[in-house]
């Protein structure tokens, strides 16, 4: 009983954390399962993926109803991430993991710094202003992706970064949220809360593709996954209902802390060190 409660508690914390920041929560779940419960790394990743999917579905149900998650934008970026993930799978044998981890660590450090400064004042182009401008396919699609009080800009760059997020996920086993949230917020002009909610919506699909492989290969232990899923649901539901009470500056700071942690983890990996059990999703 004690083990079940501890697993559910871990799932609740990971779910709340993931729903609040648009990340998978694997950054907490995998070390908990490997270091705290002594599970093998692969099993921990498999259980963590179940937690990520639950967090995504439970959080997205709330965020979509409240108009915070942007389904069309999420789908568009999801496509880019999925293509990146596919390409990453093929590139896995061509690229040096340590070199990639070093480059990603630098990118995350720069992103953390940029997040602290907030989004830039890029040229925000509203649909009305496009009436007299060029009307190519990208702009036409951009104009359908905005939401209440914001419009989406720099779609090609945002999609390019989502491809990078997919490649990095496939090669380094970390979730794409650390790339997608800053890309949406800093590059595409999407409010931070929307970026977090939309990223949360997207991660479920990518995690489910990986989870099926783990299920088929028999790496998921249902007795462990059950309590974790229950905890993740409760944590994600609670956090997504309460997220609007968390000031944006606090969200931003929390996100910067996570980026900093993952940057250090990636730097350690580039140097051949290991801080904690490495962090997927």
């Amino acid at each position, binding site marked *: 009983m004690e083990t079940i409660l501890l697993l559910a508690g871990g799932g609740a914390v990971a779910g709340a954390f993931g729903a609040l920041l648009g990340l998978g929560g694997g950054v907490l779940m995998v070390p908990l399962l490997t270091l705290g419960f002594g599970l093998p790394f692969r099993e921990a990743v498999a259980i963590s993926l179940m937690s990520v999917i639950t967090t995504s579905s439970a959080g997205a149900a709330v965020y979509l109803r409240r108009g915070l998650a942007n389904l069309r934008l999420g*789908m568009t970026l999801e496509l880019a991430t999925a293509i990146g993930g596919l390409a990453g799978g093929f590139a896995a044998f061509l690229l040096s993991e340590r070199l990639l981890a070093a480059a990603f660590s630098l990118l995350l450090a720069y992103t953390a710094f940029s997040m602290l400064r907030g989004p830039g004042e890029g040229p925000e182009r509203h649909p009305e202003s496009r009436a007299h401008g060029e009307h190519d396919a990208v702009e036409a699609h951009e104009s*359908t992706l905005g939401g209440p009080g914001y419009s989406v800009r720099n779609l090609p760059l945002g999609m390019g970064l989502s491809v990078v997020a997919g490649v990095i996920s496939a090669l380094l086993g970390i979730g794409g949220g650390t790339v997608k949230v800053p890309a949406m917020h800093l590059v595409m002009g999407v409010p931070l809360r929307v970026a977090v909610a939309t990223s949360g919506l997207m991660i479920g699909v990518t995690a489910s593709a990986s989870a099926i492989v783990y299920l088929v290969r028999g790496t998921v232990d249902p007795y462990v996954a059950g309590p974790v899923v229950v905890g993740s649901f409760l944590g994600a539901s609670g956090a997504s209902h309460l997220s609007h009470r968390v000031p944006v500056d606090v969200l931003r700071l929390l996100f910067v802390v996570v980026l900093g942690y993952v940057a250090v983890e990636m730097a350690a990996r580039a140097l051949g060190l290991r801080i904690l059990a490495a962090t997927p999703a």
Partner: protein
Amino acid sequence: MSHANPLDAFDSGDPVERRVAGLLARGTLIVLALVVLGTILTVLAGITPIRQPGPRLEVGSLAAELAGLRPGGILWLGLLLTVALPTGRVLVSLVGFARARDRRSALVAAAVLGVLGLSLTLALASG
């Protein structure tokens, strides 16, 4: 940003988003019910997770496991539904966009399904 933020009081009026939200809300509740029941049965059966490894997924015997109210079978059904929900969400979006004659979004949703199917096939084929 904190004053008159249009996101604070916004409620999605988009029918596709509402339908997807409904699917996810109902789906996660069904998953929760199954997984809670499975976990309670696990406790009642005196099983300690981690110390006693769970059964592997055997699709052929799942119906018998469910009929016998065995914790492993009920947990597996909940976990399978968990994994199926995000793909279901893309499918519902595809149908919703198609009905709303939002061709561009429908194409994107179809492409997401296609890429997911392809990556899954490749992953399973690679063993």
